[in-house]
C-alpha cells in the first residue's frame, strides 16, 4: 500500500441507493477516505468524470444513447470497473420495460413523449463494456463495498459470494420459511450476501441479490406451483428486481410459456 487508491463512483439510471453504501458508512467513511481518494463522486462532492481512476464503481443501468457513450468514457478512464447493485449488474427493476413496449409506456406517463430520450431497452453495464467484478444486491451493502476496497488495496480479487441464501439461513439458524410456513421463498436460487434478512424477518426472500451459482429454477417453480401459486405469480417472482439476469429471465419466460 504505497499510495491511496484512486476511486471514482459513477451513476447511471438508478435510485442512488447503492452509492449510499459509501455515504452510510458513518465515521468509517472518514477512515475509507484515508485509504482512498475519491476522484469523482458527485453526490459526495468531487466531480471529474474523466479523471484516471484505479477503480470505478458504477451504479445504474444503461438506458439512453448518452449513457452508451458515457459508459465507454468511464471504462477508458479506469483500470478496474466494478458494477454495484442490480441496476448496473442485471439492468435492475426498470429492465421490466424490456418485456413491454417501452415507447407505449413512455406515452402512458408523459404527455409529450417526443421530449424523452430513451433507448428501447434497459441494459446492464456488461452489455456495453468489460466489467472486472460485479457486486450484486439491491442495494449492495457497505460491507460488500468495504470488503471489495480492502481486497483491491491488498492487490487481490474480491471474494465472489455465489452461495445460496439457504446456506446463510442455515449458518444463522433461521427456521426455513418455506418448509415451516409454506412461504414461496426465492432463497434456494438466490445469491447470498444480504445476510438472509427476509427469512430472518419471517418473510420469503424476493431475490434482490440475483441468481446464485447453478440455480435450479425449474424445481423451485414446480415447488411454488405445489404451494398453490398461479403461473403468473411464479413468473413475477423471477421477473422482479433482477428480471434481466439470464437465469431469472429464462425461468420467467418458461413458466409463462408453459401455462
Amino acid at each position: 500500500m504505497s499510495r491511496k487508491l484512486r476511486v471514482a463512483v459513477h451513476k447511471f439510471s438508478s435510485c442512488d441507493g447503492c452509492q449510499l453504501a459509501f455515504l452510510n458508512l458513518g465515521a468509517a467513511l472518514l477512515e475509507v477516505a484515508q485509504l482512498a481518494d475519491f476522484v469523482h463522486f458527485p453526490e459526495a462532492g468531487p466531480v471529474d468524470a474523466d479523471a484516471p481512476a484505479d477503480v470505478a464503481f458504477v451504479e445504474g443501468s444503461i438506458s439512453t444513447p448518452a449513457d452508451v457513450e458515457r459508459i465507454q468514457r468511464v471504462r477508458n478512464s479506469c483500470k478496474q470497473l466494478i458494477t454495484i447493485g442490480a441496476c448496473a449488474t442485471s439492468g435492475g427493476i426498470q429492465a421490466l420495460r424490456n418485456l413491454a413496449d417501452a415507447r407505449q409506456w413512455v406515452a402512458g406517463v408523459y404527455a409529450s413523449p417526443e421530449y424523452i430520450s430513451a433507448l428501447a431497452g434497459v441494459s446492464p453495464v456488461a452489455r456495453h463494456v468489460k466489467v472486472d467484478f460485479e457486486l450484486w444486491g439491491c442495494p449492495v451493502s457497505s460491507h460488500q463495498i468495504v470488503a471489495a476496497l480492502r481486497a483491491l488495496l491488498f492487490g487481490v480479487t474480491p471474494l465472489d459470494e455465489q452461495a445460496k441464501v439457504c446456506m446463510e439461513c442455515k449458518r444463522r439458524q433461521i427456521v426455513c420459511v418455506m418448509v415451516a410456513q409454506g412461504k414461496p421463498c426465492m432463497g434456494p436460487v438466490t445469491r447470498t450476501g444480504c445476510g438472509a434478512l427476509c427469512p430472518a424477518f419471517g418473510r420469503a426472500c424476493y431475490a434482490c441479490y440475483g441468481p446464485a451459482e447453478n440455480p435450479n429454477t425449474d424445481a423451485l417453480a414446480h415447488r411454488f406451483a405445489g404451494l398453490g401459486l398461479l403461473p403468473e405469480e411464479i413468473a413475477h417472482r423471477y421477473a422482479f428486481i433482477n428480471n434481466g439476469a439470464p437465469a431469472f429471465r429464462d425461468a420467467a419466460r418458461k413458466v409463462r410459456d408453459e401455462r
Partner: protein
Amino acid sequence: MSDKPDKRELAINVPVLARVEGEGALDLTIAGGRIREAKLRIYEPPRLFEKLLEGREYHEVPDIVARICGICPVAYQMSAVHALESIFEVTITPWIRRMRRVMYCGEWLESHSLHVHLLALPDFLGFDSAIAMAEKYPDEVRRGLRLQGLGNALLRLLGARSVHPVGVCVGGFHHAPRVDEVNRLRGELQAALPDAVALLRWCATLPLPQAPRPYTAVTLRHPDEYPMNEGRLVSNRGLDIAIADYEQHFAEFQVPHSTALHNHLHGQPYLVGPLARLNLNLERLHPATRCILEECGITFPTWNMFHAIVARAAEIHHALLEAIALLEHYALPHAPFVPVAPLAGIGYGCTEAPRGILWHRYETDARGVIRSARIVPPTSQNQAQIEDDLVTCLEELGLDMPEDAMRLRAEQVIRNYDPCISCATHFLKLNLRRE
C-alpha cells in the same frame, strides 16, 4: 469580466453541480441585465415505475416503489401501504401506527443528517465536500454522521436494512423487533439528544443568505401530531383539502427540459418539504424543539428559503424526541400485522417524505392486482418553485457579480431544496449565457 453586465455575452459551463441526488443541469440565460431563463434541466432517464406497477400483485408494491429512491424508500412504502389499506378497508393496530411513525422518524433522521452534513453544509462553510470539511470541523462532521447512523439504526430495527428495508407490508410489518433490541437503541437515541441540540443551535448561527420573499407552502396537517403519515393537505394561503382531492387542485405538466414532471397549485409554484412543514405546524412541534428555536432568534414561520437547513436540524431533534417517546414502554404485539383481503377500488396515500409530500393513487382489481398507479414525488412538486427562487435570488445577488459567486449562489439555491433527482434526477451542469 470587466464589461458591463448588459453588454457581456458569456457562456459558463460548470460541468457538474455536486452534492445533489440525481442527474440534472442548470441553464441560465442573462440578457439586458435580467434573467431571461432559469431552467433546472433534469435529464435522468425515466424509469417508468407507474407503468411497471401495472399488473403486479398488491403485496409486491412496497418493494417495487422503494426502488424509486434509495434515500427515502420508507416514504414510498408508507404512501403505498396507506393507499392500498384504504382500498382493502384495513384498520391497523395502534402498535403498527406507532412503529410506522418510528420508522419514518428513522428516515427523517437519516435523510436530513445526510443532507445537512454531506450535501449542504460544505456550501456555507466553504468546502467542496464533507470529507474536506472534516479536516477543519472533525467533531461536527462526526456528530452528523452519528445522527445519520442512528437514523439508519432505527430503519434497521424495523426494516432489517436502511436502504430498501424489507420489514413493511400492506397491513403492518413482517416482524416485530425484540424488547431488548428496542431498549438498547432507545438508550442510544437518548444519549444522542445533546448532539441534536448542538446541531440545531449551530445551524441557526450559520452565515445563511438573507432572501425573504412570499411563497406558498403546502404540507400535511394532523389535528394533534407533527405530520408524517396522515392528515389533510393545507397551505398558508387557505388550501385545506382531503388527500383524495389532490388532483382537483394540483396540476402536473411536462416541460421539454425535464424528465421530471412539474407541478402547480392553482396555476402557481409551491414549496413542499421541511420548511413548509415547520412553518405550518409549529404548534405541533415538540415543545423542547420549539424552545430551542425560540432561543436561537429565528422567528418561525420564516420566509427566508435558506432557513430550510435550520428546519431540517429542528426536525432531526424532533424526530429523535418522537422516536424516544414512541419506543417508551415498548412491548411485543400479538401480531405485527393485520390480515389483508384484497378488494377492487381506488385509494390514495400521502405522507411527508423527508423532502415533502409524496402522493400516491392506486386502482386495484378484486384480486388486489394493480390496474393503474400514479405517483407524485416531492422534488417534481418543488421544481417550479426552485426555478422561481433561482431568478429571485440571483437578481438579488446582482447579475454583474463574478461568475463564480453566481454559480455558487445558484448551487446553494438548488441544494437548499435537497432535490432528489433520482426521485424526480445526478449531476447538475450550469450553462450560463449572457447576451
